[in-house]
Protein backbone atom coordinates (compact mmCIF):
# COMPACT_ATOMS: atom_id res chain seq x y z
CA UNK A 1 0.00 0.00 0.00
CA UNK A 2 2.85 2.33 0.80
CA UNK A 3 4.32 1.95 -2.65
CA UNK A 4 1.32 3.54 -4.37
CA UNK A 5 2.57 7.03 -5.28
CA UNK A 6 0.60 9.93 -3.94
CA UNK A 7 -0.23 11.58 -7.29
CA UNK A 8 -1.81 8.32 -8.49
CA UNK A 9 -3.88 8.18 -5.32
CA UNK A 10 -4.97 11.78 -5.74
CA UNK A 11 -6.08 11.22 -9.32
CA UNK A 12 -7.96 8.04 -8.43
CA UNK A 13 -9.79 9.71 -5.55
CA UNK A 14 -10.75 12.57 -7.85
CA UNK A 15 -12.09 10.13 -10.43
CA UNK A 16 -13.89 8.03 -7.84
CA UNK A 17 -15.51 10.99 -6.07
CA UNK A 18 -16.64 12.43 -9.41
CA UNK A 19 -18.06 9.05 -10.45
CA UNK A 20 -19.78 8.71 -7.10
CA UNK A 21 -21.37 12.14 -7.46
CA UNK A 22 -22.64 11.29 -10.92
CA UNK A 23 -24.03 7.97 -9.77
CA UNK A 24 -25.62 9.40 -6.62
CA UNK A 25 -27.38 12.22 -8.39
CA UNK A 26 -28.17 10.74 -11.80
CA UNK A 27 -27.97 6.98 -11.89
CA UNK A 28 -29.41 5.76 -8.59
CA UNK A 29 -33.19 5.45 -8.54
CA UNK A 30 -35.37 7.57 -6.27
CA UNK A 31 -36.22 5.94 -2.98
CA UNK A 32 -39.90 4.98 -2.63
CA UNK A 33 -40.47 6.29 0.86
CA UNK A 34 -37.96 9.10 1.34
CA UNK A 35 -37.61 10.42 -2.20
CA UNK A 36 -34.71 12.51 -3.37
CA UNK A 37 -33.42 13.36 0.11
CA UNK A 38 -32.45 9.72 0.67
CA UNK A 39 -29.44 10.26 -1.59
CA UNK A 40 -27.50 11.86 1.20
CA UNK A 41 -27.36 8.41 2.74
CA UNK A 42 -24.86 7.26 0.13
CA UNK A 43 -22.41 9.75 1.51
CA UNK A 44 -23.52 9.60 5.13
CA UNK A 45 -23.12 5.83 5.43
CA UNK A 46 -19.86 5.67 3.45
CA UNK A 47 -18.42 8.54 5.49
CA UNK A 48 -19.41 6.76 8.68
CA UNK A 49 -17.77 3.54 7.59
CA UNK A 50 -14.64 5.44 6.54
CA UNK A 51 -14.50 7.24 9.89
CA UNK A 52 -14.76 3.92 11.73
CA UNK A 53 -12.00 2.55 9.50
CA UNK A 54 -9.81 5.54 10.37
CA UNK A 55 -10.37 5.11 14.10
CA UNK A 56 -9.67 1.39 13.88
CA UNK A 57 -6.56 2.18 11.82
CA UNK A 58 -5.51 4.61 14.52
CA UNK A 59 -5.95 1.95 17.16
CA UNK A 60 -4.06 -0.59 15.06
CA UNK A 61 -1.13 1.78 14.68
CA UNK A 62 -1.34 2.53 18.40
CA UNK A 63 -1.10 -1.18 19.12
CA UNK A 64 1.90 -1.43 16.78
CA UNK A 65 3.54 1.42 18.64
CA UNK A 66 3.01 -0.14 22.05
CA UNK A 67 3.72 -3.74 21.14
CA UNK A 68 6.25 -3.68 18.31
CA UNK A 69 7.83 -0.33 19.20
CA UNK A 70 7.65 0.71 15.56
CA UNK A 71 9.07 4.27 15.47
CA UNK A 72 6.81 5.35 12.64
CA UNK A 73 3.61 4.05 14.21
CA UNK A 74 2.90 6.95 16.57
CA UNK A 75 2.65 9.55 13.82
CA UNK A 76 0.62 7.17 11.67
CA UNK A 77 -1.79 6.61 14.56
CA UNK A 78 -2.16 10.34 15.10
CA UNK A 79 -2.84 11.06 11.42
CA UNK A 80 -5.41 8.22 11.30
CA UNK A 81 -7.26 9.67 14.27
CA UNK A 82 -7.09 13.13 12.72
CA UNK A 83 -8.61 11.90 9.47
CA UNK A 84 -11.21 9.97 11.43
CA UNK A 85 -12.19 13.14 13.23
CA UNK A 86 -12.52 15.08 9.97
CA UNK A 87 -14.68 12.38 8.41
CA UNK A 88 -16.60 12.05 11.67
CA UNK A 89 -17.42 15.74 11.52
CA UNK A 90 -18.73 15.14 8.00
CA UNK A 91 -20.87 12.27 9.31
CA UNK A 92 -22.39 14.53 11.95
CA UNK A 93 -22.98 17.23 9.35
CA UNK A 94 -24.64 14.96 6.78
CA UNK A 95 -26.60 13.23 9.53
CA UNK A 96 -27.83 16.58 10.78
CA UNK A 97 -28.93 17.60 7.28
CA UNK A 98 -30.76 14.33 6.89
CA UNK A 99 -32.43 14.77 10.27
CA UNK A 100 -33.61 18.24 9.27
CA UNK A 101 -35.07 16.88 6.05
CA UNK A 102 -36.67 13.85 7.66
CA UNK A 103 -37.92 15.25 10.94
CA UNK A 104 -37.57 19.01 10.65
CA UNK A 105 -34.99 19.26 13.44
CA UNK A 106 -31.24 19.63 13.10
CA UNK A 107 -30.57 17.02 15.75
CA UNK A 108 -32.46 13.91 16.80
CA UNK A 109 -31.47 11.67 19.68
CA UNK A 110 -33.35 8.73 18.18
CA UNK A 111 -30.72 8.01 15.56
CA UNK A 112 -28.27 5.50 17.08
CA UNK A 113 -25.43 6.15 14.71
CA UNK A 114 -25.53 9.91 15.09
CA UNK A 115 -25.46 9.70 18.88
CA UNK A 116 -22.63 7.19 18.73
CA UNK A 117 -20.65 9.49 16.48
CA UNK A 118 -21.24 12.39 18.82
CA UNK A 119 -19.79 10.41 21.71
CA UNK A 120 -16.85 9.26 19.60
CA UNK A 121 -16.31 12.80 18.36
CA UNK A 122 -16.07 14.07 21.91
CA UNK A 123 -13.77 11.21 22.78
CA UNK A 124 -11.35 11.87 19.94
CA UNK A 125 -11.43 15.61 20.45
CA UNK A 126 -10.21 14.82 23.96
CA UNK A 127 -7.48 12.75 22.26
CA UNK A 128 -6.24 15.95 20.66
CA UNK A 129 -6.41 17.83 23.92
CA UNK A 130 -4.41 15.06 25.56
CA UNK A 131 -1.85 14.91 22.78
CA UNK A 132 -1.20 18.64 22.69
CA UNK A 133 -0.90 19.11 26.41
CA UNK A 134 2.09 16.76 26.60
CA UNK A 135 5.49 17.71 25.21
CA UNK A 136 6.58 15.64 22.21
CA UNK A 137 8.39 12.51 23.15
CA UNK A 138 7.95 8.86 24.06
CA UNK A 139 5.51 9.62 26.87
CA UNK A 140 3.18 11.54 24.58
CA UNK A 141 3.32 8.68 22.07
CA UNK A 142 2.49 6.13 24.77
CA UNK A 143 -0.40 8.13 26.23
CA UNK A 144 -1.89 8.81 22.79
CA UNK A 145 -1.56 5.16 21.81
CA UNK A 146 -3.28 3.89 24.95
CA UNK A 147 -6.09 6.44 24.54
CA UNK A 148 -6.60 5.48 20.89
CA UNK A 149 -6.95 1.85 21.97
CA UNK A 150 -9.58 2.86 24.52
CA UNK A 151 -11.45 4.60 21.74
CA UNK A 152 -11.78 1.54 19.61
CA UNK A 153 -13.06 -0.46 22.57
CA UNK A 154 -15.52 2.32 23.30
CA UNK A 155 -17.14 1.98 19.87
CA UNK A 156 -19.02 -1.31 20.44
CA UNK A 157 -19.62 -0.57 24.13
CA UNK A 158 -21.15 2.81 23.33
CA UNK A 159 -23.25 1.32 20.58
CA UNK A 160 -24.62 -1.28 22.98
CA UNK A 161 -25.24 1.44 25.55
CA UNK A 162 -27.14 3.62 23.10
CA UNK A 163 -29.29 0.68 22.07
CA UNK A 164 -30.00 -0.13 25.71
CA UNK A 165 -30.79 3.50 26.47
CA UNK A 166 -33.58 3.65 23.93
CA UNK A 167 -35.86 1.67 26.20
CA UNK A 168 -36.06 4.48 28.68
CA UNK A 169 -35.15 7.50 26.56
CA UNK A 170 -37.08 7.61 23.33
CA UNK A 171 -39.55 5.48 21.46
CA UNK A 172 -37.93 3.71 18.58
CA UNK A 173 -38.34 5.54 15.29
CA UNK A 174 -38.40 3.23 12.36
CA UNK A 175 -35.62 4.22 10.00
CA UNK A 176 -34.01 1.90 7.61
CA UNK A 177 -31.36 2.71 5.08
CA UNK A 178 -33.29 1.44 2.08
CA UNK A 179 -35.12 -1.85 2.45
CA UNK A 180 -34.45 -2.76 -1.17
CA UNK A 181 -30.71 -2.68 -1.19
CA UNK A 182 -30.16 -4.17 -4.58
CA UNK A 183 -29.53 -3.17 -8.12
CA UNK A 184 -28.34 0.35 -8.84
CA UNK A 185 -28.64 1.38 -5.18
CA UNK A 186 -26.01 -1.18 -4.26
CA UNK A 187 -23.73 -0.20 -7.13
CA UNK A 188 -23.99 3.49 -6.25
CA UNK A 189 -23.33 2.78 -2.60
CA UNK A 190 -20.25 0.71 -3.43
CA UNK A 191 -18.85 3.45 -5.63
CA UNK A 192 -19.51 6.09 -2.97
CA UNK A 193 -17.92 3.90 -0.30
CA UNK A 194 -14.84 3.21 -2.42
CA UNK A 195 -14.56 6.92 -3.19
CA UNK A 196 -14.64 7.88 0.50
CA UNK A 197 -12.11 5.23 1.47
CA UNK A 198 -9.67 6.20 -1.26
CA UNK A 199 -10.14 9.88 -0.43
CA UNK A 200 -9.44 9.19 3.22
CA UNK A 201 -6.33 7.21 2.40
CA UNK A 202 -5.09 9.94 0.05
CA UNK A 203 -5.57 12.61 2.69
CA UNK A 204 -3.91 10.34 5.25
CA UNK A 205 -0.85 9.84 3.03
CA UNK A 206 -0.73 13.53 2.25
CA UNK A 207 -0.83 14.59 5.88
CA UNK A 208 1.58 11.87 6.95
CA UNK A 209 4.06 12.89 4.27
CA UNK A 210 3.78 16.53 5.26
CA UNK A 211 4.33 15.82 8.95
CA UNK A 212 7.28 13.52 8.28
CA UNK A 213 8.83 16.24 6.14
CA UNK A 214 8.32 18.75 8.96
CA UNK A 215 10.01 16.38 11.40
CA UNK A 216 12.97 15.88 9.09
CA UNK A 217 13.31 19.63 8.59
CA UNK A 218 13.31 20.14 12.32
CA UNK A 219 15.97 17.50 12.82
CA UNK A 220 18.13 19.02 10.10
CA UNK A 221 17.77 22.48 11.60
CA UNK A 222 18.75 21.15 15.01
CA UNK A 223 21.72 19.34 13.51
CA UNK A 224 22.92 22.48 11.75
CA UNK A 225 22.40 24.78 14.73
Amino acid at each position, binding site marked *: MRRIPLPALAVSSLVLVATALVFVFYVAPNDQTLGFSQRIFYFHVSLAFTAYACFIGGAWNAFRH*LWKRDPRADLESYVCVHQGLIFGAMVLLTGSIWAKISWGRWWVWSEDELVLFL*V*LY*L*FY*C*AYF*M*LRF*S*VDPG*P*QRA*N*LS*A*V*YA*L*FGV*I*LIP*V*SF*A*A*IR*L*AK*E*FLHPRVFTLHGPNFGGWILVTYCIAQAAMLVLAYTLYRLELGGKRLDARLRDLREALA
Partner: protein
Amino acid sequence: MSYVRDVGALARKDLLLELRARDTLPAMLLFVAAVFVIFHFALPGTPSRLETTGFLWVAILFTALLGLGRAFVPEREQRTFDGLVLAPCDRSAIWLAKSLATLTFLVAAEVVALPLYALFFHPIHGAMVAAVLLADVGICGVGTFLGAMAVVTRARDLLLPLLFLPLAMPIVVGAVGASVSASPGRYLGFLALYDLLFALVCWATFEYVVAE
Protein backbone atom coordinates in the same frame (compact mmCIF):
# COMPACT_ATOMS: atom_id res chain seq x y z
CA MET B 1 0.72 -13.43 46.12
CA SER B 2 3.23 -10.63 46.34
CA TYR B 3 1.08 -8.78 43.79
CA VAL B 4 -1.81 -8.80 46.24
CA ARG B 5 0.55 -7.62 48.97
CA ASP B 6 1.82 -4.77 46.79
CA VAL B 7 -1.71 -3.68 45.98
CA GLY B 8 -2.63 -3.90 49.65
CA ALA B 9 0.36 -1.83 50.72
CA LEU B 10 -0.29 0.88 48.14
CA ALA B 11 -4.01 1.05 48.87
CA ARG B 12 -3.30 1.21 52.58
CA LYS B 13 -0.96 4.13 51.98
CA ASP B 14 -3.66 6.08 50.16
CA LEU B 15 -6.29 5.33 52.76
CA LEU B 16 -3.96 6.33 55.57
CA LEU B 17 -3.07 9.58 53.82
CA GLU B 18 -6.75 10.43 53.45
CA LEU B 19 -7.51 9.43 57.01
CA ARG B 20 -4.87 11.85 58.25
CA ALA B 21 -5.49 14.70 55.81
CA ARG B 22 -9.29 14.38 55.72
CA ASP B 23 -9.73 16.70 52.76
CA THR B 24 -11.13 14.69 49.87
CA LEU B 25 -13.96 12.79 51.51
CA PRO B 26 -15.59 15.71 53.40
CA ALA B 27 -15.36 17.76 50.21
CA MET B 28 -17.12 15.04 48.25
CA LEU B 29 -19.89 14.77 50.85
CA LEU B 30 -20.53 18.49 50.92
CA PHE B 31 -20.41 18.62 47.15
CA VAL B 32 -23.08 15.94 46.80
CA ALA B 33 -25.39 17.69 49.23
CA ALA B 34 -24.91 21.05 47.52
CA VAL B 35 -25.47 19.55 44.09
CA PHE B 36 -28.77 18.02 45.21
CA VAL B 37 -29.94 21.40 46.41
CA ILE B 38 -28.93 23.01 43.12
CA PHE B 39 -30.79 20.31 41.22
CA HIS B 40 -33.91 21.02 43.20
CA PHE B 41 -33.80 24.61 42.06
CA ALA B 42 -32.62 23.77 38.56
CA LEU B 43 -35.63 21.82 37.40
CA PRO B 44 -38.89 23.74 37.42
CA GLY B 45 -41.99 21.94 38.62
CA THR B 46 -42.03 18.70 40.55
CA PRO B 47 -39.57 16.28 39.03
CA SER B 48 -40.76 12.73 38.59
CA ARG B 49 -38.90 9.67 39.76
CA LEU B 50 -37.34 9.33 36.32
CA GLU B 51 -35.90 12.83 36.40
CA THR B 52 -34.56 12.64 39.93
CA THR B 53 -32.81 9.38 39.10
CA GLY B 54 -30.99 11.34 36.45
CA PHE B 55 -30.06 13.90 39.10
CA LEU B 56 -28.61 11.22 41.31
CA TRP B 57 -26.37 9.87 38.59
CA VAL B 58 -25.13 13.25 37.47
CA ALA B 59 -24.36 14.04 41.10
CA ILE B 60 -22.49 10.76 41.58
CA LEU B 61 -20.54 11.23 38.37
CA PHE B 62 -19.38 14.73 39.19
CA THR B 63 -18.62 13.88 42.80
CA ALA B 64 -16.51 11.02 41.52
CA LEU B 65 -14.72 13.40 39.16
CA LEU B 66 -13.97 15.62 42.11
CA GLY B 67 -12.46 12.74 44.02
CA LEU B 68 -10.59 11.41 40.99
CA GLY B 69 -9.05 14.80 40.34
CA ARG B 70 -7.53 14.60 43.79
CA ALA B 71 -6.41 11.00 43.43
CA PHE B 72 -2.91 11.61 42.13
CA VAL B 73 -2.27 14.90 43.90
CA PRO B 74 -0.06 13.37 46.66
CA GLU B 75 2.09 11.68 44.01
CA ARG B 76 2.39 14.88 42.05
CA GLU B 77 3.07 17.24 44.96
CA GLN B 78 5.63 15.10 46.69
CA ARG B 79 6.98 13.71 43.42
CA THR B 80 6.57 10.15 44.57
CA PHE B 81 5.50 8.91 41.16
CA ASP B 82 9.05 8.12 40.14
CA GLY B 83 9.55 6.16 43.33
CA LEU B 84 6.42 4.15 42.67
CA VAL B 85 7.46 3.36 39.13
CA LEU B 86 10.94 2.31 40.24
CA ALA B 87 9.54 0.03 42.94
CA PRO B 88 9.95 -3.69 42.18
CA CYS B 89 6.27 -4.32 41.67
CA ASP B 90 4.08 -4.76 38.64
CA ARG B 91 3.10 -1.26 37.45
CA SER B 92 -0.55 -2.24 37.16
CA ALA B 93 -0.57 -2.68 40.95
CA ILE B 94 -0.31 1.10 41.22
CA TRP B 95 -3.49 1.48 39.18
CA LEU B 96 -5.35 -1.24 41.05
CA ALA B 97 -4.40 0.09 44.46
CA LYS B 98 -5.34 3.64 43.57
CA SER B 99 -8.66 2.47 42.10
CA LEU B 100 -9.48 0.54 45.25
CA ALA B 101 -8.69 3.54 47.42
CA THR B 102 -10.79 5.87 45.26
CA LEU B 103 -13.57 3.27 45.27
CA THR B 104 -13.52 3.32 49.06
CA PHE B 105 -13.89 7.11 49.10
CA LEU B 106 -16.68 7.06 46.55
CA VAL B 107 -18.62 4.36 48.38
CA ALA B 108 -18.14 6.26 51.64
CA ALA B 109 -19.52 9.38 49.97
CA GLU B 110 -22.48 7.43 48.63
CA VAL B 111 -23.30 5.99 52.03
CA VAL B 112 -24.31 9.56 52.83
CA ALA B 113 -25.48 10.58 49.35
CA LEU B 114 -28.03 7.82 48.84
CA PRO B 115 -29.98 8.38 52.07
CA LEU B 116 -29.82 12.10 51.32
CA TYR B 117 -31.30 11.45 47.90
CA ALA B 118 -34.02 9.31 49.49
CA LEU B 119 -34.73 12.15 51.88
CA PHE B 120 -34.82 14.94 49.30
CA PHE B 121 -36.39 13.20 46.35
CA HIS B 122 -37.56 9.61 46.06
CA PRO B 123 -36.93 6.35 47.90
CA ILE B 124 -34.27 4.03 46.57
CA HIS B 125 -34.51 0.31 45.92
CA GLY B 126 -32.26 -2.69 45.64
CA ALA B 127 -31.55 -2.48 41.94
CA MET B 128 -30.45 1.11 42.37
CA VAL B 129 -27.97 0.16 45.08
CA ALA B 130 -26.61 -2.66 42.92
CA ALA B 131 -26.28 -0.23 40.03
CA VAL B 132 -24.44 2.22 42.27
CA LEU B 133 -21.92 -0.40 43.33
CA LEU B 134 -21.30 -1.71 39.81
CA ALA B 135 -21.08 1.77 38.36
CA ASP B 136 -18.61 2.79 41.08
CA VAL B 137 -16.25 0.02 40.05
CA GLY B 138 -16.28 1.22 36.46
CA ILE B 139 -15.98 4.89 37.39
CA CYS B 140 -13.04 4.32 39.71
CA GLY B 141 -11.22 1.90 37.43
CA VAL B 142 -11.42 4.02 34.30
CA GLY B 143 -11.21 7.31 36.18
CA THR B 144 -8.03 6.37 38.02
CA PHE B 145 -6.43 5.25 34.79
CA LEU B 146 -7.32 8.51 33.04
CA GLY B 147 -6.26 10.46 36.12
CA ALA B 148 -2.81 8.94 35.85
CA MET B 149 -2.72 10.00 32.21
CA ALA B 150 -3.94 13.49 32.98
CA VAL B 151 -1.46 14.07 35.79
CA VAL B 152 1.54 13.98 33.47
CA THR B 153 0.10 16.56 31.10
CA ARG B 154 0.22 20.33 31.35
CA ALA B 155 -3.57 20.66 31.47
CA ARG B 156 -4.03 18.21 34.39
CA ASP B 157 -7.30 19.01 36.20
CA LEU B 158 -8.75 20.46 33.05
CA LEU B 159 -8.15 17.32 31.07
CA LEU B 160 -9.58 14.64 33.34
CA PRO B 161 -13.29 15.49 32.84
CA LEU B 162 -12.77 15.73 29.08
CA LEU B 163 -11.11 12.34 28.94
CA PHE B 164 -13.52 10.75 31.36
CA LEU B 165 -17.00 11.85 30.31
CA PRO B 166 -17.21 10.12 26.91
CA LEU B 167 -16.06 6.90 28.54
CA ALA B 168 -18.56 7.40 31.35
CA MET B 169 -21.53 7.51 28.99
CA PRO B 170 -22.12 3.72 29.01
CA ILE B 171 -21.91 3.72 32.80
CA VAL B 172 -24.62 6.35 33.01
CA VAL B 173 -26.83 4.43 30.59
CA GLY B 174 -26.41 1.20 32.53
CA ALA B 175 -26.88 2.83 35.90
CA VAL B 176 -29.91 4.96 35.03
CA GLY B 177 -31.45 2.07 33.13
CA ALA B 178 -31.08 -0.27 36.08
CA SER B 179 -32.58 2.37 38.35
CA VAL B 180 -35.71 3.08 36.31
CA SER B 181 -36.34 0.00 34.22
CA ALA B 182 -38.81 -2.72 35.14
CA SER B 183 -36.20 -5.37 34.30
CA PRO B 184 -32.89 -4.05 35.65
CA GLY B 185 -31.04 -7.30 35.05
CA ARG B 186 -30.01 -6.38 31.52
CA TYR B 187 -28.57 -3.07 32.59
CA LEU B 188 -26.75 -4.53 35.58
CA GLY B 189 -25.30 -7.17 33.26
CA PHE B 190 -24.17 -4.46 30.88
CA LEU B 191 -22.52 -2.57 33.74
CA ALA B 192 -20.74 -5.71 34.86
CA LEU B 193 -19.54 -6.30 31.30
CA TYR B 194 -18.28 -2.73 31.03
CA ASP B 195 -16.45 -3.04 34.34
CA LEU B 196 -14.82 -6.29 33.32
CA LEU B 197 -13.80 -5.15 29.86
CA PHE B 198 -12.34 -1.82 30.88
CA ALA B 199 -10.72 -3.15 34.04
CA LEU B 200 -8.92 -5.67 31.86
CA VAL B 201 -7.77 -3.04 29.39
CA CYS B 202 -6.67 -0.66 32.16
CA TRP B 203 -4.81 -3.41 33.96
CA ALA B 204 -3.04 -4.46 30.76
CA THR B 205 -2.05 -1.01 29.53
CA PHE B 206 -1.27 0.93 32.73
CA GLU B 207 2.37 0.05 32.35
CA TYR B 208 2.56 2.12 29.18
CA VAL B 209 1.03 5.12 30.87
CA VAL B 210 3.71 5.40 33.53
CA ALA B 211 6.71 4.01 31.69
CA GLU B 212 8.80 5.86 29.15
